């Protein structure tokens, strides 16, 4: 085995050099972890969810740790799409990997407006639609739990952009494949499965919920088996690429998602704990392919043995 393995994959028309993507909300606006490694080495970066206008976020406490998990209710705190494009995007110029914007609207029209503004910007390679944030009272998960509205949001974005459209789904539904098929029909070119699971935690001494918002979204290794199951199910239900996300800490976790059919994976909570987690996963996948004589990572995707 001489040549280094080909790790590149295609997600809905976007070619990325390896399947490891930094998940929205865990990588800032793209440059925060630059002291730890060059983010150009990742497959892609999805920046913090952006809305039309800045959002200050929810009152603290916003995070709580649970066994093997992180409960959060940040509330989509962000600087707004215009400030991102004007102030943050120019500094991402030196990063040689696709930048994907995650967008959040309070109304279907706002999603369309966000897509329009992004369409004009060269430095953004794709759009990830957030219809799955559990921590905002308007929009977010509300759109992601109903197949018709999920499709309307997707359609609204797709008709306003030529860039690849990825839809990030919520696990907090009875049957995720119904939503997955609905957004596929509406023009989604890839799916991110999954956002956080609704959860809560209570301090027995004070009898108060540990989050000021009472409930929040659970991430981290605690949700990995559930996220993996959802990816497995969605892969069987749609023909567009699925990006696996949920509790991936190391390359082993990433391989599990690829094996059940994820075309790429996102690293989220792990970035908080080990800022080098994502780049270590890229390296781990590369070394695995070398060891196992895999010349192209695509050979691994969907190769889980079930009979």
């Amino acid at each position, binding site marked *: 085995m001489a040549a280094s393995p080909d790790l590149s994959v295609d997600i809905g028309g976007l070619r990325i050099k390896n399947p490891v993507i930094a998940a929205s*909300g*865990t*990588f*800032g606006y793209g440059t*925060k*972890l630059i002291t730890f490694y060059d983010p150009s080495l990742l497959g892609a970066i999805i920046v*913090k969810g952006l809305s039309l206008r800045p959002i*200050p*976020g*929810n*009152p*603290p*406490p*916003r*995070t*709580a*740790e649970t*066994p*093997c*998990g*992180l409960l*959060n209710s*940040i509330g989509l*705190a962000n600087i707004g799409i215009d400030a991102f494009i004007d102030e943050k995007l120019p500094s991402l110029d030196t990063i040689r990997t696709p930048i994907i914007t995650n967008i959040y609207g309070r109304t279907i029209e706002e999603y369309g407006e966000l897509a329009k503004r992004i369409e004009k910007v060269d430095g953004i390679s794709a759009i990830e639609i957030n219809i799955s944030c559990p921590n905002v009272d308007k929009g977010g998960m509300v759109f992601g739990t109903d197949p018709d509205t999920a499709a309307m949001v997707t359609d609204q974005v797709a008709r306003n952009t030529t860039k690849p459209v990825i839809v990030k789904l919520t696990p907090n539904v009875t049957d995720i494949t119904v939503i997955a098929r609905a957004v596929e029909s509406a023009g989604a070119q890839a799916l991110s499965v999954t956002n956080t699971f609704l959860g809560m935690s209570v301090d027995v001494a004070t009898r108060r919920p540990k989050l000021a918002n009472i409930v929040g979204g659970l991430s*981290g*290794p605690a949700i990995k088996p559930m996220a993996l199951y959802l990816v497995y199910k969605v892969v069987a239900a749609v023909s567009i690429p699925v990006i696996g996300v949920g509790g991936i*800490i190391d390359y082993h976790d990433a391989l599990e998602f690829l094996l059940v059919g994820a075309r790429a994976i996102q690293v989220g*909570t792990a*970035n*908080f*704990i*080990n*800022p080098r987690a994502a780049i270590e996963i890229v390296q781990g996948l590369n070394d695995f392919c070398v060891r196992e004589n895999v010349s192209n990572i695509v050979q691994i995707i969907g190769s889980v043995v079930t009979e």
Partner: protein
Amino acid sequence: MGFRSERLASSAMPGQFLMLRVDSNSKDPLLRRPFSIHEKSDDNRLTILYKVVGQGTSLFSTLKEDDSISVIGPLGNGFSLPHPEERAILVAGGMGIAPLFFLAQALSRAQKRHMKMLLGFPTSQEVVLADQLKDLGVNLSLATEDGSLGFRGLVTDLFDQSIDQESEAKPIIYACGPRPMIKKIVNKAMTFNLKCFVSMEGFMACGLGICLGCAIKAAQGKEKVYYYVCQDGPVFSAEMIDWEVM
């Protein structure tokens, strides 16, 4: 607990913090834990002060000499030091002594100044570092809630007395401890129009300004609605924060 690192020690400033993790493969506990730097020694040794309260800290007590630990830091802004002509009063409640000890150490080394420090603990058994502070030449007053050592009552009562006795020269206040304590100190300091810096805690997942967990409400009229303890702090000038919601 202390550890040696030339890289960390060379840049560590009083008030800054570290994100620590004992076992790099641990999934439970999952997150790093933030700790103020408590002391810096000449041999590139940094020390943190901890009390065993949960999973993370109980792991610390299992460490032996020459074990290694994963550290990210130094993080955060650190204390603004007083001008040489300003007098400083340091007020600590319980484990809030950690960053203020490092500050006292730095002030005594750099400026050989007169420094007053007020310390509060529940009982005499929990008092730490009093002798070391006296060695630094700090004018120390102790309060214990049960009266087993020093003043009987809260460190905030001691602070009230101390401020009431002040002459016209205005001291600069540095405070760290439980939120209700900090709030009382700030209240008094603001009433007397004293410059006051507080070291704040916040629930944080990363310490690096990406999780946005450690939000703290900014005072009315500030440019931002929330500050983040990890990147805007952990030290804040008291007037920056909205104390009504604390």
